[in-house]
């Protein structure tokens, strides 16, 4: 959507309507800021608050209640190795005296045989109230959902982080072009400003195009 408004801003400049340009530019900037806010305030912290533990192969049987691997095998699904959810005793991550993790289980681990849990959900489903206890001795590796957690989160944070930095760069450039200095340049040489907006807009389209590939790769698949 911000790709449209930036084109409208450019078109407004071409028609020498500074007022319209100013509003369209503001809309573009706001779109960028909203995107970044969603990412930094909602999406990433949600991941950081989430916990996952990979169970050792020999202990998988023991946690059948949470993993439902018999059900998965019947359905021809790959076995589940990880129990995830909200970690209630966070100090367990660092304190060696605590022997087990208390996890508010994710729906897939709370009710593993439910056919609705066979596929991942697109929209976020919060962890349930059901508490699962996992002994540390049975855990291969356990971390919050940080880049170090798995190859998926490593790629996810790297790519969305880089994309976010490009968005931030674009927003900063747009803000510069929207501030009163632009008015000065506009009065002096409107075509100059229009060309700047055009080039910055091209960059914005590129970032948008990247998102069109990033979104299905990380959010839909």
């Amino acid at each position: 959507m911000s790709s449209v408004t930036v084109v409208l801003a450019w078109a407004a400049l071409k028609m020498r309507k500074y007022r319209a340009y100013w509003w369209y530019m503001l809309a573009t900037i706001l779109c960028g800021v909203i995107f970044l806010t969603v990412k930094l305030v909602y999406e990433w912290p949600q991941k950081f608050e989430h916990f996952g533990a990979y169970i050792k192969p020999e202990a998988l049987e023991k946690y059948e209640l949470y993993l439902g691997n018999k059900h998965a095998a019947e359905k021809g699904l790959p076995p589940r190795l990880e129990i995830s959810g909200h970690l209630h005793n966070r100090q367990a991550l660092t304190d060696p005296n605590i022997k087990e993790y208390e996890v508010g289980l994710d729906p897939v681990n709370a009710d593993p045989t439910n056919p609705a849990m066979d596929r991942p959900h697109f929209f976020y489903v919060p962890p349930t109230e059901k508490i699962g206890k996992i002994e540390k001795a049975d855990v291969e590796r356990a971390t919050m959902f940080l880049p170090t957690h798995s190859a998926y989160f490593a790629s996810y944070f790297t790519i969305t982080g880089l994309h976010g930095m490009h968005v931030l760069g674009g927003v900063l450039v747009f803000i510069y072009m929207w501030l009163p200095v632009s008015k000065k340049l506009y009065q002096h040489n409107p075509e100059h400003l229009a060309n700047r907006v055009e080039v910055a807009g091209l960059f914005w389209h590129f970032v948008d195009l990247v998102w069109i590939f990033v979104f299905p790769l990380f959010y839909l698949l």
Partner: protein
Amino acid sequence: MDASASLETHGQDRHQHEGEHPPSPGSGAAGEHHELGWWRKYIFSTDHKVIGIQYGLCGLVFLFFGFSLMMLMRWQLAYPGQALPVLGKWLPYVFGPNTMPDGKMTSEFYNSLGAMHGTIMIFMGVVPVAFAAFGNFVVPLQIGAPDMTFPKVNAASFWAFGVGGIIMLVSFFVPGGAAKSGWTSYTPLAAIADKGDAYHPFFNGTTLWLVGFIFLISSSLLGAINFITTIIQLRAKGLTWMRLPFFVWTQFVTAFLLLLAFPPLEAAIVMQIMDRVAATSFFLPTGLVVNGAALHISGGGSPILWQHLFWFLGHPEVYVLILPAFGIVAEILANNSRKPLWGYKSIVFSVLVIGFLSFVVWAHHMWLTGMGSTVSAFFQTTTLLISIPSVIILSAFFISLWGGSIRFNVPMLFATAFLPMFGIGGLTGIPLAFNSADLYLHDTYYIIAHFHYIVAPGTIFGLFAGIYYWYPKATGRIMNEFWGKVHFWPSLICMNVIFLPMFLQGMLGMHRRWYDGGQGWTLSGEHIWGLSGFQWNSPISWAAWIMGLAQIPFIINFFWSIKHGKKVNDNPWEATTLEWTAPSPPPHGNFIVTPVAYRGPYEYSLPGRERDFTMQNEPVEATERTRRKTAEPVLVG
């Protein structure tokens, strides 16, 4: 911002943009010229000549600095465990007490020096001088352009290089010292190095090395885009592709190599930063054990992936280093043999073929990784194929000398020395191209000698030749001939004393990363001229230090000649290409009269002419036209 601001074609903003935007070819040189302040003119300049000189000076300083690191290492190799006289007392004050306690080099510091020698020489020395400095200064002049297409992008490129260079230098002074994992920064070693209580989690040698690299890569990318656009768009009227000086062709191909090869490495470097800072496992395998303890990582990454990504840059990078030197040498050979360059078209196509093939040979750096014989066979074949165009170019250069009336001035000395030196470097590479031979020679001093013959007496001699050759264009004065020869002969002799014995050491089995110069290892025990593999270290080291001294005449000559060199006219070498039609030094906008090219780049000794050179902007006369119909086609270029 820079990209957006400099794309505009209308320079109406007179205070800031006057003259920065190249007028379209034919509209004359920059007309009305607003005088800039000192800072804008010499430091934050957008003029391609100033940026070229800035790149050149910085690059030369880095080259000397990188060489100094090696001179320190040579002491440790020749006299392992002994205190370094005089300097050994002072160096700990510069690099920190743990680097050289009592003047004795620690192995960590040795590794730092080795890694940074490679990085600085290649990415902060040779590339800036060969590509950015000569390319910036000479290419627009040779194609008759008033400036680069994107002057501000050009400045951004230089300043990105500056930031990258500073970060690399700063990394010497953080706790623990600079990066130690070799200039290739192989994982998993590089991902676990410089970690622990003694190191800052971010400001440690290896991480700063990676961050500095991101700036250096961005700088090269900006430069490459600018070069490609400039060469395509801003050639003078009549300067068709086959009339381009060979130097411009080499810069053109080099720019494509940088543009296509660097982004994969940039991505890989971001991934390695993530591995180090955010504990991801892009390049770390499952079950990695360090010092007897399993690492707490998700694993699943591939260390070989890093090598592939690195060498996908690394091999084209080799040609980035050598191609500009080819171009410089070609210009100087034609000029000083007073003959057209032999086989112009075939060497142009050879350069294009090299450019293409250099992207499909990278895995010959990785024979020891066990990629499998099918992959090895493919890369072995392509590696041998790429020697064909290289040999065509070198042969064409040799044939160009045949029957010429050669003038042995200083640029020509360096250019002719380039030919056999590059020849030795190239021919000794052939055993390395074969998987079976390389298994033995890999990571020995043999390979050090091989690639240093290419880049040290090869590329760097080409660069010296270029500096002596274009110095009059930049300053209006010529460098001193006598001191130039005093610079040349010891350098040539020392280069060979340094690198020839290394072939022998390598064949005796000396590994390139040994900290004690092979003293603690049993080599094959053979003696060459009475010296064992280890004992050869000391003549090599002495030659290296003498070569360091031999650069002093050059440094003095270089700065002294700016003010006191002999004044010369605009075309002191009686050359034919367009840069010599501009005043020396060229003013802002370069040309008094916008040049038009009427002929090929190397029309020396044209029959029936008074002078033995015919410049590209001299119109073809009627009498000449009739004669041309019967003349050899090579003269038309």
